[in-house]
């Protein structure tokens, strides 16, 4: 037995243990927690932090979080939503509106926002599932529900129209900088906060995947009527998927509105926001637990680093980003996390032809 095989063998033994997911989770999140310090390590006179700032890390984890939330609906139940900006925007707007009008603590506002978004998700789900929209039509309908909100907000003076909201100071709602106020004076606590969000949504995704709910979700994704024929109430579980996904996406929007200073319809409800929210999951591997996280660490830094590197040529970053999108869906339609198994399959094929030749010779 070669060393590679024995390593793989022992990994497989480890993988079979019940504690394996726990160990993997701790390792992953331990690494993510250490990242702000890792990027500052001086390697041969070069700091990673020079290109990969803490701000980029925060954005990366935000999009890992929202992609993880999107994944629950679209990756697991297979209902491809192209309109998650609706939930993201609701999260941002409800939090800020409640903060501005009622001085409601953002933590409470965030939960209210989550419930509103889940409600909007249920309306979308009820209509699209009952009328059996599929494929492109489903994607277009979800997009329309998001765009609808953008124009509603733009036209409502009650929501500050196109001007949006400016994040108030903690003292405006009777708090001081810190966790309770959802505001900090430096970026590091913001990073750990969104990492906590990511941990929660990943944990919940893991729980879903390892329960009957996840199995039902996947069964619906694979073949809805076959699943129904063995007792899966597809409509109800699809609704559950939308509601949970919308709720957590809204929390991401709430975080966004508390991290950045302003929100406007053309930022949180932007047409392209719909893409940014789902892209890491598609790039990483839809339906997988690690895919959205891996995907975000590929997609987000590329776009952010391109933006900061090519400041002299406005737009070059988006060309790189666009080319990257095209390349990734062409060369890796099932996501980056499928690479190891694809490589293994390739390796096996190569090896089996080798051994066949040996036999033939």
């Amino acid at each position: 037995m070669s060393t590679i095989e024995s390593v793989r063998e022992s990994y497989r033994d480890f993988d079979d243990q019940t504690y394996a997911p726990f160990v993997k989770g701790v390792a992953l999140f331990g690494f993510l927690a250490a990242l702000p310090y890792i990027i500052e390590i001086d390697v041969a006179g070069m700091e990673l932090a020079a290109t990969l700032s803490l701000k980029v890390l925060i954005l990366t984890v935000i999009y890992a979080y929202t992609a993880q939330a999107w994944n629950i609906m679209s990756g697991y139940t297979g209902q491809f939503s192209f309109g998650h900006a609706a939930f993201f925007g609701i999260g941002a707007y409800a939090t800020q509106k409640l903060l501005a009008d009622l001085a409601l603590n953002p933590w409470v506002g965030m939960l209210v926002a989550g419930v509103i978004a889940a409600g909007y998700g249920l309306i979308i789900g009820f209509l699209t599932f009952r009328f059996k929209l599929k494929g492109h039509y489903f994607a277009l309908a979800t997009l329309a529900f998001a765009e609808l909100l953008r124009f509603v907000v733009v036209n409502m003076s009650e929501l500050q129209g196109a001007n949006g909201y400016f994040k108030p100071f903690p003292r405006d709602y009777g708090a001081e900088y810190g966790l309770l106020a959802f505001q900090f004076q430096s970026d590091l606590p913001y990073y750990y906060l969104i990492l906590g969000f990511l941990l929660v949504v990943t944990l919940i995704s893991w729980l879903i995947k390892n329960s009957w709910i996840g199995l039902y979700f996947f069964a619906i994704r694979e073949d809805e009527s076959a699943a129904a024929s063995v007792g899966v109430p597809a409509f109800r579980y699809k609704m559950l998927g939308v509601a949970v996904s919308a709720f957590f996406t809204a929390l991401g929007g709430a975080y966004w509105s508390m991290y950045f200073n302003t929100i406007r319809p053309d930022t949180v409800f932007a047409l392209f926001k719909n893409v940014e929210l789902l892209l890491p999951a598609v790039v990483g591997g839809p339906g997988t637990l690690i895919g959205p996280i891996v995907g975000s660490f590929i997609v987000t830094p590329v776009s952010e680093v391109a933006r900061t590197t090519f400041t002299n040529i406005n737009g070059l970053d988006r060309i790189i980003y666009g080319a990257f999108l095209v390349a990734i869906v062409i060369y890796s339609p099932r996501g980056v996390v499928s690479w190891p198994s694809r490589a293994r399959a390739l390796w096996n094929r190569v090896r089996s032809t080798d051994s066949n030749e040996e036999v033939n010779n």
Partner: protein
Amino acid sequence: MPQIDISVVTFPLQGGGLDRFTDPLVQFLTDIANLDAVLLQLLAFGLLLGGVYALTALGLTMIFGVMDVINFAHGVFLVVGMYTVWLVSESLGISPFVGIPIAAVVLFVLGVVVHVLTVEPILEAPQQNQLIATLGVLLIIQSAIEIVFTPDPQQVQLSLGSLQVGGVFIPLGQLYALIIALGTMLAVRAFLNSTDLGRRIRGTADNRDGARYVGINVKRINYLTFGIGAALAGVAGASIALFQRFDPFTGETYLINAFVIVILGGLGSFPGAFVGGLIVGMIQVFGGYYLPGTTAQVLIFLLFIGTLLVKPEGLFGGADA
């Protein structure tokens, strides 16, 4: 006289409350009761705008209908058409009208290239991948235009003036665009209905697998469809440039409304695209005049969602590309 600007602009916000809906309705009904001249003017504007909108949707509905691909790059194809006309008339001093066929050719080539590089490899992949790939193309082309021509708005130097017909004011630029739209539609329809190649494209739209069995080279049909779809976008963009300022990002609004029109009119249907274009144009013109801000766009999306849910095959039934 109402100022009609097709691009979505944000008007100053009106006050809150229900009167924002009732006031316009009362105003609208009063105008109808009085047979106010403004109604005729709005109808004329709606017709003109609807024709242009229909033109922007033709290429999209063709690609969607034949290939079952949602082409998000369609909006930026329009923009390329606009810049082509502008470039031809500014740098070469040729009439912008000559620029229109040039734009069609440029876009045909661009469409085929985009198809070969990005769409063809993933035709059989999950549909969301096509969507992301064409969005990537949108970003690339849009940003390339931005780098080369700056993000500033451009305008074709052309003063066509306007007509006064019985008190109704008709800007000639938009009238020409409408005529071009109608002419293009008729030409493409004639191509699809009376040439052998056109019939093959229609056969492929009806049944891709069936087309393969009867020996149609579906691969070549795809090239052609994407090329023609893009060329139609080129003509549309070029026509819009005759009367409107544009920048690299102009395509986005047109793109979304083009989707609405495609669905309203029914997938792959050219006459449907015209009806859909008229509906969207009328709602925008009348809504823009009576309703505050861009509330009209809200109505358009509600209609869009309603159609998707209840009659996804389009308001007027089946497809006939």
